[in-house]
């Protein structure tokens, strides 16, 4: 659906140059929710703006829906942009227009439908995001979460196949963030919408994304299926982002304790299986729990436990965990 090949972006800022993107290769499949995570200044906004060419790459190729974006003339580019919706951290609604006029705006720009049809469609979209009763208010009268839902309705007005989200929940409180993320998930399911979202919060990735790329200083340092990247991060930046999100389970890393320290990662149904007690009994291993959590990645339940194991047959215990489908990772302390 979206293909970025060897994308470079260099900004000329005053006297110097800033290399914001340095050789990005990404492929986003139709219908998936693809996340890009990175710290502030990593180049996320630059990256997402390559897809609808709000910023032009200094080098490299952008292909959207089989079309080489660079080959489009001005009118072709405007057509492409109509097929790509976008929502923003600060919503970017027109303050001079009412809620329904904001949602109608892209349709009005497109100039294809009659006035009444535009209004009817805008109202239907507002109904979809549960804001039908706010249609004639102005954006300044809405809460942040409501504004972002107006943003989503507006982005969907021209029935795009792709939705780009630039830090769409970063200005929202946790509860509103969850609402907006749930809405994005539903739209992904209902409309088969391909979603590319960028964020600095691992929690956002964990809740909605199928795949994730970790961006650092203009390069992708790690990418893959969210559960894999999240549960066994390989790059230091990824680990740091997981820790910042409070999603790490490294309580045991520096703690006291004898024996061997292991991290067990359960996924799916094994998360709820009563393995620990049974294996400990059968192998005579004693354990102390140094850290752990049970949560979800999209709909996938997972558990992560850091244990110190002493006595008995530790190797046999680890083999039994592995046999039961638990990923075992020994931690050096």
């Amino acid at each position, binding site marked *: 659906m979206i293909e970025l090949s060897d994308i470079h972006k260099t900004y000329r800022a005053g006297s110097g140059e800033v290399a914001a993107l340095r050789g990005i290769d990404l492929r986003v499949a139709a219908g998936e929710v693809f996340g890009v995570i990175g710290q502030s200044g990593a180049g996320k906004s630059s990256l997402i703006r390559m897809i609808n060419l*709000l910023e032009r790459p200094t080098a490299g190729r952008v292909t959207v829906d089989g079309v080489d974006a660079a080959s489009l003339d001005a009118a072709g580019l405007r057509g492409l942009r109509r097929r790509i919706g*976008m929502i923003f951290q600060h919503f970017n609604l*027109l303050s*001079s*227009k009412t809620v329904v006029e904001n949602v109608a705006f892209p349709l009005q*720009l497109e100039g294809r439908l009659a006035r009444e049809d535009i209004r009817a469609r805008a109202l239907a979209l507002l109904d979809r995001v549960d804001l039908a009763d706010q249609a004639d208010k102005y954006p300044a009268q809405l809460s942040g979460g409501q504004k972002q839902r107006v943003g989503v309705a507006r982005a969907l007005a021209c029935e795009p196949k792709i939705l780009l989200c630039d830090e769409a929940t970063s200005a929202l409180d946790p509860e509103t963030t969850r609402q907006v993320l749930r809405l994005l998930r539903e739209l992904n399911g209902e409309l088969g919408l391909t979603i590319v979202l960028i964020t600095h919060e691992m929690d956002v990735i964990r809740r909605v994304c199928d795949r994730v790329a970790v961006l650092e200083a203009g390069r992708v340092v790690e990418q893959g299926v969210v559960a894999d990247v999240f549960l066994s991060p390989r790059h230091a930046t990824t680990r740091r982002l997981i820790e910042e999100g409070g999603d790490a389970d490294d309580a045991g890393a520096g703690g006291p304790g004898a024996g061997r320290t292991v991290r067990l990662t359960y996924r799916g149904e094994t998360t709820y299986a009563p393995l620990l007690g049974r294996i400990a009994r059968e192998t005579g291993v004693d354990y102390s729990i140094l850290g752990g959590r049970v949560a979800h990645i999209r709909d996938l339940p997972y558990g992560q436990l850091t244990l110190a194991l002493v006595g008995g047959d530790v190797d046999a215990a680890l083999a039994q965990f592995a046999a039961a489908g638990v990923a075992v990772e020994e931690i050096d302390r």
Partner: protein
Amino acid sequence: MSAAGSALFANVDWAEIGRAGVDTLAMLGGSLVLTVAVGLPLGVLLFLTGRGQLLAQPLAHGLLSVLVNVLRSVPFIILLIVMIPVTVVLVGTSLGVPGAIPPLVVGAAPFFARLVESALREVDRGVIEAAQAMGASPRQIVFDALLPEATPGILAAATVTAIALVSYTAMAGVVGAGGLGDLAVRFGYQRFQTDVMVVTVALLLVLVQVLQMIGDRAVAHFSRR
């Protein structure tokens, strides 16, 4: 008029004040409409051609900017005199209300254009970016997003400009345009008729107050923030 009133304003010829008031309003109305008609597009161009903007054109921006600055740095009284030949070509006379309008517009339009430019700069960049992301053409961005968003700022700019024009019209009396300001200078100042001075200045003050009030109301009406 009561007897006391007539005594107090012995020199005041109310019919003449009335005619002067009409002249002032005619100069103000005509020049304000034309100032907006010239200054608004000029301000939009100044904004759009600026660095990092939609139609960034350093050369065009530089030229426009110098033109505006030159016109703004010429004292209005000089502009009135220098403009006389041009005014004659444009409206056939350099006298009266028609003769005053071209210099008033040339004096005020660059000022208004600068105010429009800064009102447009106040528009959230994100809104422009959102419109671009929706596939808006530059024309649509200007007319459907930028100008509606900047409407309160542009109305405030028009108010400031209208009030500046009121004081310019007083100077326009010098080229025989008439008006309240001219009356204040000719009778009130040059012939020491203090009562005429007081009446004309009071009327100008009322005019300025009314303009400010209309302007503030209009700004409030269009503000949605």
